[in-house]
């Protein structure tokens, strides 16, 4: 019943490339301050993850894999960016002002994080299945870079974008380490991501109308 359309070796090579590309895109979005561009880069990440899931599906020939790829396309590449653009249209801000630290400082720190991920995960698991020289380190680096980006952002919307990037790193790790999570879990996670973006968009919308800016630095009333 299952037809395998892609050899394991080819899949390994392609996944390796996609992981590096994803890492590059996430690194770019660390340096991007325009919110619409950041959302576009998020859609690109979604596209790359769809490709990764699709390659695994082609190589394993499992129906589950194709479904997972379709789900990723619908949620990560289309629905989430569209929802965020919708929030952006109603938001009073268009780009990230007054960065916490400058790009000149952020870039070397980010490179440091990437080197750390290669160093830390390189020896963790033996190369097997789709775990190659780049896949797992890149996935962990994406997770860390997403977190790092979050720390550097003041606007609520950019924090959401960074959070989804973190989750993307995790998704890549799931695809390569275990060929995705069980289908029910994957659908649940996708649903959660959708609802999370909707709820966060909704709250940030109210933040916008209450504080007249989506600047989370103003959220300082609650202390002690």
């Amino acid at each position: 019943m299952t037809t395998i359309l892609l050899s394991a070796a080819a899949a390994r090579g392609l996944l390796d490339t996609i992981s590096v590309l994803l890492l590059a895109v996430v690194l770019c979005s660390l340096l991007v301050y325009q919110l619409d561009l950041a959302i576009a880069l998020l859609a690109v990440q979604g596209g790359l993850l769809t490709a990764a899931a699709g390659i695994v599906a082609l190589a394993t020939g499992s129906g589950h894999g194709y479904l997972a790829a379709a789900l990723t396309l619908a949620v990560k590449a289309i629905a989430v960016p569209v929802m965020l653009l919708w929030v952006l249209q109603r938001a009073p801000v268009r780009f990230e002002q007054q960065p916490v630290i400058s790009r000149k400082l952020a870039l070397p720190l980010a490179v440091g994080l990437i080197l750390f991920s290669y160093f830390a995960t390189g020896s963790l698991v033996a190369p097997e299945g789709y775990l190659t020289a780049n896949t797992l380190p890149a996935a962990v680096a994406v997770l860390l870079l997403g977190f790092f980006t979050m720390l550097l952002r003041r606007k609520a919307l950019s924090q959401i974008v960074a959070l989804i990037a973190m989750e993307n790193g995790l998704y890549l790790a799931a695809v390569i380490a275990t060929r995705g999570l069980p289908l029910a879990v994957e659908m649940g996670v996708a649903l959660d991501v959708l609802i999370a973006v909707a709820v966060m968009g909704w709250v940030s919308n109210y933040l916008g109308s209450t504080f007249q800016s989506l600047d989370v630095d103003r959220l300082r009333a609650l202390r002690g």
Partner: protein
Amino acid sequence: MFLIALLGLPPLTAVLCRAFRAPSVIASIHALGGFATLCLGLVVVGRVFADGPVTAVGASVYVDQLSAVLIAVIVVLDFAAALYSIGYLQREVQSGAVPVSQLPWYYCGYHTFIWTMLVTVSVNNLGLLWVAVEATTLVSALLVGFHRTPAALEAAWKYLILCTVGIVIALFGVLLTYYASTRLTAGESGLDWTVLMAHAGQLDPGIMRLAFVFVLIGFGTKAGLAPLHNWLPDAHSQAPSPISALLSGVLLECALYAIFRFHMLASIAVPGGFSSRALVTLGLISVSVAVPFIVVQRDLKRLLAYSSVEHVGLIATAIGLGGSLGLYAGALHLFNHAIAKALLFFVAGNLTQRYGTTRMSRIRGVVRAMPVTGSLLLMGMFAITGLPPFAIFLSEFGIVGAGFAQGNWLAVAILIVALGIVFAAAFGHALDMAFGRPRTSLEKLTFPRLRGGALAIPAGLMVLLGVYMPPAFNSALQQVAGLLASGPR
């Protein structure tokens, strides 16, 4: 059968609450839904403790004794908070803090929130457990921000972002667990609790150790374990009081439940008691970090929130210390903390609405102004600080005793010092509020009787369990302790 009904009822109630407009109709549906959930929940719990674990829908729903304790806590507090919500919201609408049009949303969100917690503790698959925990965050964040004041929105935002980051980290732990298990059981059921537990001894120790670290950080954020508790005092103090009661009393413990599941796996898979030590460490840190904030606190609801950090730490410490005494005391404390904290948040709700503030310096002379609420405030504060004859005294005594039994003198020392300071501080705050001289005269305000009924549930349970331990309850706790010690039987 009952289990399916239990999981189906809250979403049904949620939809019905949204479907009607008249506040009295919605309130009746809401109360009936809460009562039916309580009855079904208690039937399920009774069956599990009488006949062992129950499964439904193939094996995708699995309720064992540990889940049953949590279900009992959820349904009891659900019913109490449901009754309390009605009167609380009536008053909020009267005072203009909440528009009538928002009421259906509140009740709809309330039952959805209960549902996500029930799902959390009854799914078999640890991945779906993760999905359910994230769903609790999303639903309850909307309830935290329900008042839409700047402070409430700030709290909701902080809660959403910090807990979601935490939970993404936990997902990495879940993924590692799946990775460890797919190497053994080539199949999709590799995250099912029953499957994992059957193979727990063969899981790769290195991977499981790492998985537990990620799970502890991730779900620990959600459970409010220090130093990952930053969001907690904001969210728990800004939410409407009945929701605060559920957040502090139940939701934190649902997150602990998730940690305990992975702890049970890790304690079999990773030799050397790694996960126990990690739990004790984080637990003790939480207890110690909460103490100074309790001492200097000026806001009543934040005081209660920091006390939750302390008690979550106590439960984690108890389970980490282990031994039959520690596990028994931990399970008992889970239950005790839930009812005591619910009572106190209800009392805080009454006081906030009466005095129009949560600042303790302005809440004075409660015993004279509101005799019933005032006495319950004193009772609740005495109970939460571990004064006999209330039930928390027994469980805290048991936890310290477990420290002695395990020879963990550092834990014993930290616990005794921390509990002593908290006792003195909370006692002082309580006496000031109860007997202090009021600064301003108060407007006349009487609360409807239903609200008193809501307070009577946790207050009654607290007194009862302090003086008399029903044999069935005792045997249930022993079953839970046995399960935590040895895995499913």
